[in-house]
Structure formats: C-alpha cells, structure tokens
C-alpha cells in the first residue's frame, strides 16, 4: 500500500492527449492490491473523461478481479454525500440546542427539587450509605489539600500585607487583613473551587459513564429514580462537607497568617489572638460559612447535571466533565459577587 504513492503521483501528473486511444500495458505489474487498483481505476476514469478510448492489456486474471471489484463499487465510491448542513441552518440548530439545554437545566433543577420534597416527606428513602461514602470521598479525603492550600494563601496574604503595614507602623492590623479577608471571602472560595475541581468533575464523569454503560437505564427499569439515588446523596454530602471544609480552611489560613505576622511583623501569637477577638466580628465568619452550603448545592447540581447531559461516548464524558468544572466555578463566583453586593447594601 505505501508503494502506491509514487505511482499515484505520476498518474495524476499525466496529461492525456485528448480523444486518443490509450492502451495501458499492465503485464509488468508485479504486485497489486486494492490501493493500486483504486489508483489505476481513477486514472482510467480520468482519461475516459477527457474523451480517450482506454483499455488495459496483459493484466493478470487475479489482478483483473481486483479491478472489477473497484469498478463494481465505483458508483458508491464517488456518490456525492450531502454535507451535514449549511451556515444558517447550523446557526439555527446551535440556538435551538442552547434553548434545549437551558430548558433541560431547568427541568433537572425542578426534578431535583421535587425529589428533595419527596425525600423530606419520606426520609427513610434517603440513601445514607451512598451519602456517607460521598462525605468521605469528597469531604474527608479533601482535607489535606484544602488545608495546605488555604495555609499557603494565608501566608501569601500576610506577606503582601506585611510590606505595606510596616511602612505605616500599623503592624497589628495584619490581624484585620488576614482575619476578615480569609474568613469572609477567601477560605470559602478556595474550598469551593477546590471541591468543584475535585468532586464536581468526578460527579459528571461518574454519572456520565453510568449513562454510557446504560446503568442509568437499568436503574430506571427497576423503577428507581437516578436523581434520588445519585444526585440527592451527593448534594447532601457536599452541603454538609463544604461548610466543614471551610471552617477547617479558616483555621489553617489564619494560622498561616499568624506565623508570618510573628515572623515578619513581631506580632506575637497572643497579641494576634487577642486582637483577633476584638477586630474580627463573628458575622464575617458566619457569612463565609453561610455561603458554603449554597456553593455546595451549585457544585453538586452542576456536576450531576453535566453527567446526565452526556449523550454519545467517551468523548462526551471528557467534554462535559470540563464544562462542569468551568460552569460551577463560574456560578460560584457569580453567586459570591451577588452576596457581596447585597450584604454591602444591608451594610453587613
């Protein structure tokens, strides 16, 4: 097959004298495969198109069989295949798909809400085992990475603040800086973003793979609701896990800031903690922790929803996993921004 290439180039470069009688002398062909047959037949047809009278002589009988194989399939080979669709049609389907996706999203939200209501009415239906498993995988196992990251963020904020505060000799305000920014905004956001990357993507991939392997269909034939079985335990697990992770992140982040404060600004641990009590109001921590369950709902629902949207095969799993992470981080930050504006409004 690779050796056909030079022959093909030579034949394609050939200029046939118009309306002549051509005889292809084929007795010299030593090896012939379907690739060669296709190339030779293409050349014959090309010559014929230019009005030449073409014939082949001396082709071995088994090679001739291959040629007739090509000629009998030629019509199907050159059949014009209609392109998928043109520009305006594609735009229309793109808009249509977008609308369908939005409606599906709402549908999913509604189904989850009704499933939740049904569950509240009959709490014994809750899948505690699966919920606890989720709690371990998405909460407990995320402790090391969340702790390390927020600790480092605390260190970074304290370092940057130390530079500025030292200029004014207001070293003690490092406590306000680290305390308020971490408790109120940064720790909940870092925890949420980590969990979106860690667990939201896993939800999409798990549910998507179950869809591809028809496990979801199997559940449905047993009269079981995939939402009740797969979505609600995960949502509930994250709603519990994320505030706890945030509180843990608060502690480690502030600890990181405290280390740098004593190291760079000579603010001792005891001075830091006593200032912390007066400077950082409880509401900052409560606001931070209060946002966490909402972040959790966003991350879990987006992850599961993207999992259910997977249609085709393996390719789709990867695509929707990516979408789930991007979308949940996007929505988390939007929600956070709205919270900031509203809270500022109410001067909290």
């Amino acid at each position, binding site marked *: *097959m*690779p*050796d*056909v*290439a030079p022959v*093909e*180039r030579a034949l*394609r470069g050939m200029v046939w004298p118009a309306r002549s009688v051509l005889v292809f002398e084929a007795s010299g062909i*030593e*090896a*012939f*495969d*379907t*690739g060669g047959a*296709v*190339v030779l037949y*293409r050349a014959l047809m090309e010559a014929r198109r230019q009005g030449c009278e073409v014939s082949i002589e001396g082709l*071995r009988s*088994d*090679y001739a*069989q*291959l040629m007739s*194989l*090509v000629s009998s*399939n030629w019509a*199907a*080979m*050159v*059949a014009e*295949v*209609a*392109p*998928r669709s043109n520009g305006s049609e594609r735009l229309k389907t793109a808009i249509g798909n977008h609308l369908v996706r939005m409606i599906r999203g709402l549908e999913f939200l509604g189904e989850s809400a009704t499933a939740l209501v049904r569950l509240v009415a009959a709490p014994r239906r809750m899948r505690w085992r699966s919920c606890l498993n989720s709690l371990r995988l998405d909460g407990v196992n995320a402790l090391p990475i969340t702790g390390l990251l927020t600790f480092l963020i605390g260190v970074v904020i304290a370092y940057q603040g130390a530079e500025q505060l030292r200029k004014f000799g207001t070293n003690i305000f490092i406590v306000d800086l680290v305390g308020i920014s971490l408790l109120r905004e940064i720790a909940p956001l870092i925890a949420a973003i980590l969990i979106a990357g860690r667990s939201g993507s896993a939800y999409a991939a798990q549910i998507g793979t179950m869809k591809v392997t028809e496990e979801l269909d199997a559940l449905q034939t047993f009269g079981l609701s995939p939402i009740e079985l797969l979505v609600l335990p995960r949502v509930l697990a994250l709603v519990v896990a994320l505030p706890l992770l945030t509180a843990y992140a608060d502690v480690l982040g502030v600890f990181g800031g405290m280390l740098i404060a004593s190291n760079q600004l000579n603010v001792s641990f005891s001075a830091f903690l006593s200032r912390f009590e007066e400077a950082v109001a409880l509401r900052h921590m409560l606001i931070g922790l209060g946002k966490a369950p909402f972040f959790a709902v966003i991350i879990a629902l987006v992850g599961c929803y993207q999992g259910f949207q997977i*249609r*085709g*095969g*393996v*390719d*789709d799993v990867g695509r929707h996993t990516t979408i789930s992470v991007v979308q949940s981080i996007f929505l988390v930050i939007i929600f956070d921004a709205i919270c900031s504006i509203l809270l500022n409004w109410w001067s909290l």
Partner: protein
Amino acid sequence: MDHPPPIGASSDQAEWPVIEVSHVSTRFGTAVVHQDVSLTVVRGEVFAIAGGNGCGKSTLLREIIGLLTPTTGTIRLLGTDSRQLTHSNGSPLHRRFGVMFQHGALFSSMTLAENVAVPLREHTPLSAEAIRDIVALKIALVGLPPDSAIKFPSELSGGMRRRAALARAIVMDPELLFLDEPTAGLDPIIAAGFDDLVLNLKRLLGLTVVMVTHDLDSLWRIADRVAVLGEGQVLGLGTMEALARSDDPVIRSYFHGPRGRAAHLNHSGRGLHRD
C-alpha cells in the same frame, strides 16, 4: 512491496505457517489461563478459536497480536516473534495484519471515514485524494452506504459499527485479519451476511482470517479449521466435521448441545440444497 502480494501467492507459500503458537502458558497471578497451548495457522485459511466463556480465547488472540505477553512459550506471527510487537510501535509488522475488536473500538472523536483512514494516513505517503478513494472502496466493500462515511460512531447502529470496524481492519490490505467475536450480538440475518462478507473478502483479497467466536453457525459456514480451547488447553483441532465426531466430552457438549445440533442440521441442510 515489503510483503508477498495478497493474491496469487504461489503454492509453496500456501502451506507456510503465518502464525505459530508454541507451548504457550499464561498465568494471571494464580489463575492459569493457558497451559502448553500450541497451534499453527497456515496461509489462506479461515481459522477459528472456539470454546466456552472464559477459556482464554480472547487472551490468546491478544497474545498473538502482541497486546499481551504469554508467561512462557513463544508466538511467531508472520515469522516474527510477536513479543516484538509489544515494545515497538509502528514496526512494519503492524501494517501486515488488521484487527477487528469485539465492540468495534472505533475512535469516537472521528467520523467513520476518518476512522477507516487512520492506518493509511499514519503509515503511507498517499495523497488525500487516493486515501479518500481507498476508504470509499473499503466502506462500499463492507456494505455500508456512502452517506454513513460522515457519521460519527455514536450515530451508527451496532451492526454498522461492526462493519465499519471491519473496513478499518482491512483498509491496508493486510495478509492477516483477526476478528474478535465478529457476529456476537448481531441478528441472524446480519450475522449470516457478515459471514458471507468475510468469505468474500478472504477470496478477493487473499486474506488469512483468524477469528474468535462462539457462533456455531459461523463455525460451520466459514471456518476451515477450528481449535477448541478448554481447561487451558487445546482440546481439539480440525475441521468442524472432524470435531463433531470427537469423543472428548467437552467438545461433544459444545457441539452437540441443542444449539450445536441445530447449527449442524442447518448447515447440512443448506449443503444438500446447494447440491
């Protein structure tokens, strides 16, 4: 051409063993899959590997094509130790055989035509036009409609995917074609069509076919020789007629169960009809 022409092989090549499996044993941990399995496949035949579920048919196939390495023993594929396939990507040997996997294994990010074109594009310097023509021929040969070429695997039915996988396996005009359960899960009409297709391709392209199958109808219709695996060994090897007369209890139960008898009757009935 770096290999003998696919058709018109001279008669002394006809008996040349294309695959030699000698004294192969395979163990996964403590589980013994094969114990001293030996067999040869000669040029131009349709060789079937049969046996019950879990008897190591697919494992043997994967060892022959170099995806797995046997624990002990050697396998020679077209005169080369198939262990070389495991560690060398793109060796010339890879171009000389085609494999059709059980579930098609089509690349889901590519259209059918792109899937079929992969070996041509990677292994030959052919122009895009020539590749398009050859791909179109192979798609037509396996009986897929021309408009399926631009479809993605997820848009094809199971039978069409199987055909597309076959088109991809034969696109390089390989000397050797491996089929892993080609007719499993196909309806009887399509399965019979598939058998005819394999026979046709074998005749036209001069293929040697090695297939793993459970399908007794296929075995009767297209297999020249059959190796029955069981208990980690080759329990019987020969034509279907010879195996059907075997006294081995496992082979008897395999070929003389209710389905085996029906397939046999069906086959001999058809044979009579043809005469």
